[in-house]
């Protein structure tokens, strides 16, 4: 996918449709410049329509809060064990977090998913930086986006 196509995907449907229709009369450079110049306006438009607020709310409600809940659950289990040496986070914690994040990525609007879902997953990892290694945060973000895309296409 080219940079122009990626930019067009971020714009509202009516703007993308108009640009595609008019691009037949202009060069590719014109299309690229129009798409780039329209990005700021598209963000303002989405904010005005309440789309950004809704995306922020759903990403925090759909990904951030469940991830934090799973993490709190593990913290509680950990606190119940007297001898904690060697008690690493089990593999199913990653699987569980991954399932939550991937479901969020698959469910919500693609354009905002790319921005807000990784942000939500990263926020949880950063809140627990001492607990999570860096590879865990990166794996969670990359795998959830890829898995989310697969679920959406299926």
């Amino acid at each position, binding site marked *: 996918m080219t940079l122009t196509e990626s930019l067009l995907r971020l*714009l*509202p*449907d*009516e*703007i*993308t*449709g*108009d*640009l*595609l*229709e*008019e691009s*037949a009369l202009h060069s590719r450079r014109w299309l690229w410049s*129009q798409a780039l*110049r*329209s*990005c*700021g*306006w*598209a963000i*303002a*438009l989405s904010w*005005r*329509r309440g789309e950004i607020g809704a995306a922020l709310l759903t990403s925090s409600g759909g990904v951030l809060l469940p991830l934090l809940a799973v993490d709190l659950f593990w913290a509680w289990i950990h606190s119940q064990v007297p001898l904690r040496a060697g008690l690493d986070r089990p593999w199913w914690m990653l699987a569980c977090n991954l399932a939550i994040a991937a479901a969020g990525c698959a469910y919500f609007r693609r354009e905002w998913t790319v921005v807000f879902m990784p942000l939500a997953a990263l926020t949880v990892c950063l809140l627990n930086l001492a607990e999570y290694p860096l590879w865990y945060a990166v794996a969670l973000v990359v795998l959830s986006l890829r898995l989310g895309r697969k679920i959406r296409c299926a």
Partner: protein
Amino acid sequence: MPKGDSVGEFEHLILLAVLRLNEDAYGMRIRQEICTRTGRDTSIGAVYATLERLADKGLVDSRLGEVTPERGGRAKRFFRVTGEGVTLLNRARRELESMMEGLPAVLP
């Protein structure tokens, strides 16, 4: 006149373009109309953001049109100036004409 009832210069141009285009007033055509008549190369995003603002003020309304293949299967959004919008334009025209009255054709 309350401050919220007035429109800016670009909003004014958009309203006039929608009026001129009549049934064919959608984003691309509005942008082209402004570009042809004023020489301003505006972005399509700016046109839609302004139309949204005008719709919030009740000066234009919109409906979705047909889906065409050259638009990648996306529908057109057609705009129409409301009665309130026409009233505002008439008032603005009267005010402008009144202010221009008595001035030379080419301003010094």
